[in-house]
């Protein structure tokens, strides 16, 4: 009797489980639009490249259908069928265009270009399609830039070839510049042309010679100073510096030692306190242990 009751309970449980799973599946599929009516359209293209079954058909970024079938026709062209959901059928009319977008970033998809309010296009009707290729567009835009770059490179090549030739204009110009600079270097005509008077030029040159002499004298004096006075003084200062550095280092070494001596008294006090505390606590534990181990508790002193 008990066993039969259990069997009925298990049966109910299994039935409820199956029903629950069924309802859940139905609701899931319904939410995904599996039971909604769809309308089929198609378009013809030269190649099936970039297309795939299940590829979304989008309108204003929303998926309104998907590619259902791809077939190769006898003339070499490709027939691609697509399914559009019932509520979005309004976007498919006689003015509708399809646009295959192949963006640089992201997967390719079919975009619907249309406006509503123009009636419905009959199912299984053909739709026009435009293919846009972002990569190729980019290449097309870059083509003139590349041409210009190639021209610049050609010009540079011509220029360098010209430089190599001895009788080229550039080489002639450079030779002329060389001659002029040599002349300037050999004569004081430039200085005369600047001052406007030959005497001034000579006096200027004499002054410069005098300055040169003075500078030599100064050099001699400083060299003797270096030998007689500066060098020993410098040595003494160096020694003094090294002594001071040594003293400074030793003071630095002494400083922590002095500090530690100053602190050691406090440290010892703290250590002593810690040890005392530890001993007190240990004693307390030992006494408790003694009290536990003692077979009888006495609260009076037993005299001998």
């Amino acid at each position, binding site marked *: 009797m008990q066993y039969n009751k259990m069997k009925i309970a298990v049966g109910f449980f299994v039935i409820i489980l199956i029903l629950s799973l069924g309802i859940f599946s139905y609701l899931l599929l319904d939410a995904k639009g599996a039971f909604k009516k769809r309308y089929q359209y198609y378009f013809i293209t030269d190649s099936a490249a970039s297309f795939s079954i299940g590829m979304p058909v989008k309108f204003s970024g929303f998926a309104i259908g998907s590619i259902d079938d791809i077939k190769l026709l006898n003339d070499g062209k490709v027939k691609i069928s697509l399914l559009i959901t019932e509520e979005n059928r309004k976007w498919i009319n006689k003015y509708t265009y399809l646009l295959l977008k192949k963006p640089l970033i992201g997967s390719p998809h079919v975009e619907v270009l249309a406006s509503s309010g123009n009636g419905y296009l009959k199912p299984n009707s053909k739709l026009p399609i435009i293919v846009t290729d972002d990569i190729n567009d980019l290449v097309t835009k870059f083509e003139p830039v590349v041409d210009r770059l190639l021209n610049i490179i050609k010009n540079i090549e011509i220029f360098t070839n010209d430089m190599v030739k001895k009788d080229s204009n550039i080489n002639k110009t450079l030779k002329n510049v060389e001659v002029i600079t040599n002349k300037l270097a050999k004569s004081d005509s430039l200085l005369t042309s600047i001052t406007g008077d030959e005497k001034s030029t000579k006096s200027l040159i004499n002054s410069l010679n005098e300055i040169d002499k003075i500078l030599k004298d100064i050099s001699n004096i400083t060299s003797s100073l270096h030998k007689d006075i500066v060098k020993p003084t410098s040595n003494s200062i160096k020694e003094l510096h090294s002594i001071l550095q040594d003293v400074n280092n030793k003071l630095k070494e002494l400083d922590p030692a002095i500090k530690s001596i100053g602190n050691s008294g406090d440290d010892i006090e703290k250590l002593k306190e810690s040890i005392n505390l530890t001993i007190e606590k240990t004693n307390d534990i030992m006494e408790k242990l*003694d009290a536990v181990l003692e077979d009888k508790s006495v*609260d009076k002193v037993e*005299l001998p």
Partner: protein
Amino acid sequence: MMKYLFVMVFLFFSGCSFKPSINQWQYKSALAFNNYKKNFLSYKDILAKDDLKKAISYAKNGADIDMLSSIYLGKCALNISIGIKDKCNEYNNIKDLVESKSQESYYAFIQKDFNNIDIENLDERYRDFAKYLSQKDYKKANEEIKNLKEPTSKLLAISLLGDKVSKQNLKEAIDLTSFYGYKKGVIYLLGRYKTKVDLKTKDKIDKKIQILLK
């Protein structure tokens, strides 16, 4: 498994139900003094000193002068029991503050001040012994020593009886204190015992004492 569970539950309940008494100082002081007695007689002087210090300290924590005087009196009696002359100065310093006739009688007893002993207030163990000792009835006093079961009591009585103690009592007391491991008591008793034996035995006892003291 069930057994361990039962033990754990039992320990848990025991732990929860156990509450230490408030007058812990009293128990700790008494315990420390008992330990002092044992350690003192066992020649464990460092431990004994510490125990006595603790006993006094706890008695002072409780501001119990009565207990403190008991400790001082006990210390004094213990010294006397192993032949150390002690006038119980610590007790004398505070005895005015204590109104304990039993302590006064005990003090008079250990000081052999028989004129001041109030036998009725003396510890029951020593009543007859004190009576016979005061009457100088040494034979009966020796008989009374035999009735003392505690080694410390026996030691004290033997010490108080002095030279009048019987050889037999000494021998029995040596065995008893030895059984308890009271080395200091044994050495004292051996010292007393050797005065009652012939020279040959005396030498042996001396040798024994030397060995024990090493």
